[in-house]
């Protein structure tokens, strides 16, 4: 009954307790173990923006969210648009036209299967729960059932609000994965005298050209290793420091 105990433990701990700072307090690694996958990630949609990563097993799970944010394509964006699940149990067998920029990078990272569930209430999509695995193949029925339970329970947690959400909205908590990207967006908009939306596009374009994620590029901007001063000539690296990668 180990699986059941894990499911109970994950469900029990999703809702943050008083004193917790995160919006979701369950252990993502336990959740991944329960569902028999290598990583999980929860992204929540904002007004007009792509999903913001709120909860994940880090590493590859966070990278998968980043790279979709950078490239503007992938299962999370499809799920957010359709509010329907997207399952890709064997990425190597997808037609190459599906997520053309994303697919080669994801496969090269060793991810073989991705399962993305909507966190939804009726036809309103709040965000996504993404599972990934390095071994191809469908999600077994029991894991599928449990994944839907977790997704619905997450939707309920996100709907409920509470003090954690207020503190988060007010910027009182520091643990916001996307903070660096939005700070860098603000900085680039001043450096290049462009609106925020265009500044974010510049960051994404730079990341795309250099085979990096927007989070990595944003780190360089906030650390002032990279500047976007001149709108015509593109970004330049700061004096005396590299871009962090060749």
């Amino acid at each position, binding site marked *: 009954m180990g699986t059941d105990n894990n499911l109970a433990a994950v469900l029990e701990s999703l809702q943050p307790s008083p004193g917790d700072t995160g919006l979701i307090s369950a252990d993502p690694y336990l959740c991944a173990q329960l569902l028999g996958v290598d990583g999980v990630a929860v992204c929540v949609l904002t007004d007009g923006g792509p999903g913001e990563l709120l909860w994940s097993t880090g590493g590859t799970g966070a990278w998968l969210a980043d790279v979709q944010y950078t490239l503007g394509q992938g299962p999370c964006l499809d799920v957010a648009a359709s509010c329907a699940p997207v399952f890709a149990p064997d990425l190597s067998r997808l037609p190459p036209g599906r997520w053309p920029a994303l697919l080669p990078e994801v496969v090269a990272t060793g991810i073989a299967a991705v399962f993305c569930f909507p966190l939804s209430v009726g036809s309103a999509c709040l965000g996504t729960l993404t599972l990934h695995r390095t071994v191809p193949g469908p999600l077994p029925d029991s894991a599928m059932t449990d994944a839907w339970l977790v997704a*619905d329970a997450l939707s309920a947690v996100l709907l409920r609000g509470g003090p954690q959400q207020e503190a988060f*909205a007010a910027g009182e908590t520091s643990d916001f994965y996307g903070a660096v990207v939005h700070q860098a967006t603000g900085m680039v908009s001043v450096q290049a005298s462009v609106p925020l939306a265009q500044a974010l596009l510049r960051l994404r374009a730079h990341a795309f050209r250099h085979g990096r994620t927007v989070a990595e590029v944003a780190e360089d901007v906030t650390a002032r290793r990279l500047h976007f001063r001149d709108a015509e000539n593109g970004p330049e690296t700061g004096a005396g420091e590299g871009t962090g990668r060749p």
Partner: protein
Amino acid sequence: MNRAEQWPAAMVEVVDTLVDDVDLIDFLRHLCDRCTELLDVPAVGVMLSAPTGKLQLIAASDEHTGLLELFALPTDEGPCVECYRTGTARLNIDLRVPSQVSAFPRFAERARQGDFVTGHALPMRVRRRVVGALNLFDTREQELSETDARVAQALADVATIAVLQHRTLVHTDVERAQTKAALSSRVVIEQAKGILAERRQATPDEAFGAPRRHARAHQFRLTAPSRQVIDGSDVVRVIQRP
């Protein structure tokens, strides 16, 4: 009619059509079965508010016919009714102790005839509005631990979402905005930090220290000043000052 007032009407529509929806009933029944396994409680049922305002059993774990009989009778009392009205969970009710069942003596008597000894009711709730209740009944004298209770509430939440899921209720936008608004507000704050950092050649957190202290001192939200930073109106105001 505002959103909050539309909501019960939409809920009525759901309950009206629920009986015809095999998929949802199946799902809720499955959920009840999962609940019996996870919590080791023999009888679990999902009740929703019907158009009449009374609660109606929509799905139950199939092990226990006693539960169906218990809820088959028309009633406007019971732990679930109480839970539905108050929106708070009622746990570990000893159905044999009169002081614990004083609000629903007839229900308790029928429950005891069905060999039930312990009862629990958890609200099915979206934000402040209660749409039904998840009920657990045990033939043994067995208390739910705090952890069990949280699991049970999570399952009640899942049932709530499933019910909402099912219809296109949703153009009511149900309170969907909460998290989205929290995130959007946070994004704006971080962007403003970046803008100030660049203008002042400081780190984002240093640059934002003053607005944050100001907001704290005057107890207002940071979102509005952050928006002013973004649209440049904070600068305009400074320049226009004589």
